[in-house]
Each structure stands twice: as structure tokens, then as C-alpha cells.
């Protein structure tokens, strides 16, 4: 009986010329978004690879140079385009694409694509994620708002109910019919997206990317099911299809436009982010209280001198078998690292609090939940950015330490006049970002996935109940 109802719903929808038009346009948008997203990901990948290569070449071509000067000259860590970034650009535009790795400082990422964009481009790009999050729900609403209310108005509901059709089967059949119509749009788009994924060669393994793709598709299906359940529930509950359509469009406005906006304002007000200048001045304040590798006259440096002289059992710095400037530099570096760890982990904790505050809004806006899951799986969210920034920082510390150690070992009494052999530069490893596993992403997104699941279960329950209590006219 359920399949009979589903088949009839599908036939009716499919024979409606308006559906064919809207579905056709939407499918076209999805295909275009997939292809342009893919092209953009390819370009980004090529650009960043070229930039990383150039950076490496410049590094290697430094010639004879003091290691600490080289550490100041620095390296850059480029964030590779994530395999699924063609589906969801996420926060990419707002997060920098590279981090400058230099001595003494843990820098924030720089080169935010949004800085190069016009006001109009800021409004939003046509991406798969945007189309799936904003437009597909509209299609679902258009397909389902009249499911019950329309039959009630036309009078067919009386005849249907007079046959003794159980209301739950009716609701399920209608849900499946709409889902089948939706599949006409979503299946071709998914196939194309999957083919494009196979054609995209990134650093990540294809198996991992495919798993992410499948999880991503599943998450969107949960989101669509929630919208469909809600549409059917409203259609069964309200008197006319007009009221059903208006209520559902109202929900769409709140869920997609109002709630995300208010949630981010609310989160920012509750846990204000520091201005970049404030962030740095707090770090500098802490630094001034510690030793400075360039200035051997302060308190901590004296203590370090005494400690090192005692360790090697000599009276003067010039009698040391190692270079003291190198030791002092590394000591200063490690002291600074503690300060950076303190301030950066505070900043990330603040972002975490903001995300938590925003999550409350996903109780009324499933879009917020799916948006986070989507960005998370695409690897374009704040979590993965932190993951990247932490690896880049670990790499920075490794490079600086290697250079300081070379100075300690080989500079003798020359200090900053010592010039290292160019062979040293090639000992510095290249930065290779290792993206996190799917399990790591799922751990971060557990709350959002749970909310999506609850949305699905709740709307299915409400739809079944509303259909059970439905009036025939």
C-alpha cells in the first residue's frame, strides 16, 4: 500500500510541468556548482603547490647566511586544498591560506581570499553546499506543502480516508513519493560529484576522501529528511495549503537566514573575540617579562649564562666549546612557545565557546547543524584550520630548533657573524600537511550529527502524529 501511494505521488509530481522546470533548473545549478567548484579546487591546488615550490626554492637559494638570519627570513606553510573543498568552501574565504613560519613568532594565517573579493562576491558563491543547504529545502517544501492540505482542499482526502487507509502508511507513502521525485535531481548530481572526486588528485588518500563523501551525502540526506518530515507535518496540521506554504517558507527564512545570523551575533556578544592588536599586545607583554635572545643583559640571560658556564665548568663565555648565542636563542624560543601555547589555546577555547553558543540555534535551524557537518567533512572549517595551524607551528619549532642547534654547535665565538654552509638549508624538511582522519572529524561533529538525527526523528514522529489526527475537511 505504501509503494502504491508513493508511486501515485511520484507520478503526480512528475506530470506537473512546474516540477520539471524547477527540478531541471536546480539540477543544472548543482551540476554547474560541482564543475566550477572542482575547477576552483584544481586551480587552488596548483597555485598552492607552485607557491610552496617557489618558497622552497627561495629557501634553498639563500647561500651563505647566519642560521638565525635564515630563521628570520622564514618559510611558509601552505594549507593544501582539502579533497572535498569543491563541495563546500566552508570558511576558506575567511581563513588564511598560508602561515609564515619565522623565528620568535607564531604567526596567524594570512592571505584571506575574502580580502581580494568585491562586496557582491561576499554575498555568496554558487557552491554545491550552498545549493544543497538553501535551495534543495525550498524544492522539498514546494513538493510537500500540499501533500495533505492540498488533498483536503480538493476533497480527495475524504475519499482516501473513507477507504480505510492507515494514516501512517499514507504519510510514509507521500514521503517516499516526494523522495523519489527529489532523487531525480539528487542522484545525477551525486554521480557527477563522485566522478569529479575520483578525478581530483590531492594529497589525501582516495579511500579516506570517498568515506568522507559518503558520510557527507548521508548527512545531507538526514537534513533533507528533516525538512520533508516537517513539511508533511505542517501540511497535515494546518487548514489550507496556502497556510502550509506560508508557514514553511517562514520556517525556511528563519532557519536559513535569520537564525544563523542571530546565532553568530549572539555568540560574538557572549564571547567577544579579541582584536588582532589586542591579541598581540597581550603576547608581547608576556614576552617582555621573559628573556630575549637578542639581549644578553637581562635577568634571565644572566641566570642562563651562569648555568651554562657551570655546566661546562668554564669562567668566560669565550671558553665555551659551544656558541652561547645559539643556546640563548633556543632558550628564548622555548620560553616564547609557552606564551604562544597559552594565548593560542585561549583563542581556540574562545572559538570553541562561540561554536557551542551557536549550536543552541540549531534547535530551530537544522541548516546550522548541517552547515557545520558539511564544512567539517569537507575539511574547510575552523577545526581543520586549527589542525593545520598546529602542524605548521610544530614544523616552525622544528626548523628554528634545527637552525639554533647548528649555531650552537658551529658558531664558536663568531655569534651572528657566523655563516652557515648552504647545505644546511636542505637539511630543513619541507612542510607536509597530514589531514585528520574521518574519525577525528566525526568526533568534532558528534553534537551536530546528533542534532540532525534528532531533527529527523522528531519531525517523522510529529508528521506521523499529525497525519493520525488529521481532519478530512
Amino acid at each position: 500500500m505504501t509503494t502504491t501511494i508513493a508511486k501515485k505521488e511520484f507520478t503526480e509530481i512528475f506530470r506537473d510541468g512546474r516540477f520539471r522546470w524547477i527540478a531541471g533548473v536546480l539540477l543544472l545549478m548543482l551540476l554547474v556548482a560541482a564543475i566550477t567548484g572542482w575547477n576552483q579546487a584544481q586551480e587552488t591546488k596548483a597555485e598552492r603547490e607552485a607557491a610552496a615550490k617557489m618558497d622552497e626554492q627561495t629557501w634553498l637559494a639563500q647561500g651563505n647566511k647566519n642560521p638565525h638570519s635564515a630563521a628570520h627570513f622564514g618559510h611558509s606553510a601552505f594549507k593544501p586544498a582539502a579533497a572535498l573543498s569543491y563541495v563546500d568552501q566552508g570558511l576558506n574565504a575567511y581563513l588564511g591560506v598560508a602561515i609564515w613560519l619565522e623565528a620568535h613568532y607564531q604567526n596567524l594565517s594570512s592571505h584571506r581570499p575574502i580580502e581580494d573579493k568585491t562586496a557582491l562576491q561576499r554575498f555568496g558563491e554558487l557552491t554545491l553546499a550552498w545549493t544543497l543547504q538553501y535551495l534543495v529545502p525550498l524544492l522539498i517544501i514546494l513538493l510537500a506543502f500540499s501533500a495533505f492540505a492540498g488533498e483536503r482542499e480538493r476533497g480527495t482526502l475524504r475519499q482516501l480516508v473513507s477507504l480505510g487507509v492507515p494514516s501512517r502508511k499514507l504519510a510514509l507513502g507521500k514521503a517516499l513519493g516526494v523522495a523519489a521525485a527529489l532523487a531525480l535531481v539528487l542522484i545525477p548530481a551525486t554521480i557527477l560529484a563522485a566522478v569529479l572526486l575520483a578525478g581530483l588528485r590531492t594529497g589525501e588518500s582516495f579511500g579516506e576522501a570517498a568515506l568522507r563523501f559518503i558520510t557527507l551525502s548521508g548527512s545531507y540526506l538526514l537534513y533533507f529528511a528533516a525538512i520533508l518530515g516537517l513539511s508533511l507535518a505542517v501540511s497535515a496540521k494546518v487548514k489550507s495549503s496556502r497556510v502550509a506554504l506560508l508557514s514553511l517558507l517562514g520556517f525556511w527564512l528563519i532557519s536559513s537566514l535569520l537564525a544563523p545570523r542571530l546565532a553568530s551575533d549572539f555568540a560574538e556578544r557572549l564571547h567577544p573575540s579579541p582584536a588582532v592588536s589586542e591579541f598581540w599586545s597581550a603576547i608581547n607583554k608576556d614576552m617582555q617579562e621573559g628573556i630575549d635572545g637578542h639581549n644578553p643583559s637581562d635577568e634571565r640571560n644572566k641566570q642562563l649564562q651562569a648555568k651554562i658556564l657551570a655546566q661546562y665548568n668554564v669562567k668566560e663565555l669565550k671558553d665555551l666549546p659551544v656558541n652561547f648565542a645559539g643556546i640563548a636563542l633556543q632558550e628564548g624560543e622555548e620560553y616564547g612557545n609557552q606564551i604562544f601555547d597559552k594565548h593560542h589555546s585561549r583563542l581556540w577555547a574562545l572559538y570553541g565557546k562561540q561554536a557551542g553558543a551557536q549550536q543552541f540555534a540549531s534547535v530551530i535551524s537544522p541548516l546550522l547543524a548541517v552547515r557545520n557537518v558539511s564544512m567539517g567533512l569537507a575539511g574547510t572549517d575552523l577545526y581543520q584550520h586549527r589542525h593545520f595551524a598546529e602542524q605548521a607551528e610544530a614544523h616552525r619549532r622544528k626548523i628554528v630548533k634545527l637552525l639554533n642547534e647548528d649555531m650552537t654547535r658551529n658558531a664558536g665565538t663568531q655569534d651572528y657573524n657566523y655563516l652557515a654552509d648552504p647545505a644546511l638549508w636542505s637539511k630543513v624538511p619541507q612542510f607536509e600537511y597530514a589531514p585528520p582522519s574521518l574519525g577525528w572529524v566525526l568526533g568534532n561533529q558528534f553534537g551536530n550529527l546528533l542534532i540532525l538525527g534528532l531533527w529527523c526523528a522528531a519531525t517523522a514522529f510529529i508528521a506521523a502524529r499529525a497525519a493520525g489526527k488529521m481532519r478530512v475537511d
Partner: protein
Amino acid sequence: MLEALNLTKRYNGTVALDDLNLKIEPGEIFCLLGANGAGKTTTINLFLNFIAPDGGAAKIKNLDVTQHPLETKKFVAYIPEQVMLYKNLTGLENLEYFSALAGHENYSRKDFLNFFGQVGLPSDAADKRVSTYSKGMRQKVGIAIALAKNAEALLLDEPTSGLDPKAGNEFSELLKRMSGNGVAVLMATHDLFRAKECGTRVGIMKHGKLVATIGAEEIGHTDLERVYLEHMRE
């Protein structure tokens, strides 16, 4: 088969149906006459459990319809005053859909065309979309749906509205044939002629009350119109 026991329905304090007691046996055709708002449609809606009674009970095959809403519907077929169909489907697809939902999934195309033949619907109309149908044609599809359901009782709410006299007559013949096979029929109608022609009993309703019942033995030689108008005057 169909039984109303002290059946009462009020809408915002106004009595729409007042203490109706009625029993229709298999093979009977009970015609309910009355002005608009007399309670005829309310009675049928109560039997279909579309609305809940404020007192008494409507029973189909001795089952209270409010307690067995799905089961009792299996025994009855319903034809409303305006049969509404899915306009993007053909007549045959509509019949097929409603039959399948009523539990008859094994009918062949030939069976469906046969039902259309019985209700006087031309076979070339079967594959046309219902949006091209006239009201009379839609009504005939409704009758075919009821026929295909193979029900033990019929609840008819002015089923012949919009039918031309010939089709109305064919419908009367069809009803008589079905009652001959033991089907119980409750038909609300304005059509005195049709009531006299095929009814085995006729009830006259006024302000929610069944004010008169004319039995099978009198119906043939009663001037129905005169009796009806007398009741309406009071």
C-alpha cells in the same frame, strides 16, 4: 449492517443531528430526504468517522466506527456529492489507485474497463486525464470506485448530482442490482423521483431529526412529494 443508536451531533451548540435511531439491513436501500442542513450529510460523515459524535454511536457490522475506524471502513464504499479525483492521473489510474488502497491490487485492466462499462463511462475516456472530465464523468468514476471496492454497504451523499437522467436511471438500476446481492445502502438525496424509484425505505429529516419513515410496503403507492412537503411545512 448499518446502525445508528441515539446518534447525536452538535456544532457550537446547534444540534445538527438529534438522537437518530436507524437500522439498515443487507439488501435495503434507505433514502434520506430533507432540506439542506437537515442532517443528512452529518449522518454519513458520522458513519465514516470523519467527525466524532456528541452522543450515541454509529455502527457498521456491529462495530462502533469510532473504536474501529479502519476496520469499519473496509465494509463500506462512499460516494460524495462531488467525487474528487487526481487531475493529473487518468480515469483508469484514479480507479486503479483507489482500488489498490481499498485492498484490491489484483484487478486487471480488463476488470477496470468492465467497471467503467457498468457505470456507463465510455472506454476511450479511461486513458484520458481526469482534468478533461465533466462533473458527470467524475461522478461515474466515483461510482466505479465504489463498485470495485466490492463493499457490503454503500454510503451515498447525493451520488447522482450532475448525472443526466439516463445516467441517473442506470445508477438506480445498478443500486437495485447491488442491493439484490445483499448490499445495504444509505443514500442521502434531494431527488424524490430517484428515492421512490429505487428506495426500499425512505426517511424524511428535518432539523436533525428523522421525522418520518415510509416503509417498503407503502412506498409504491405513496405520493412522496405531498408527504415530503407536508413535513416541510410543519
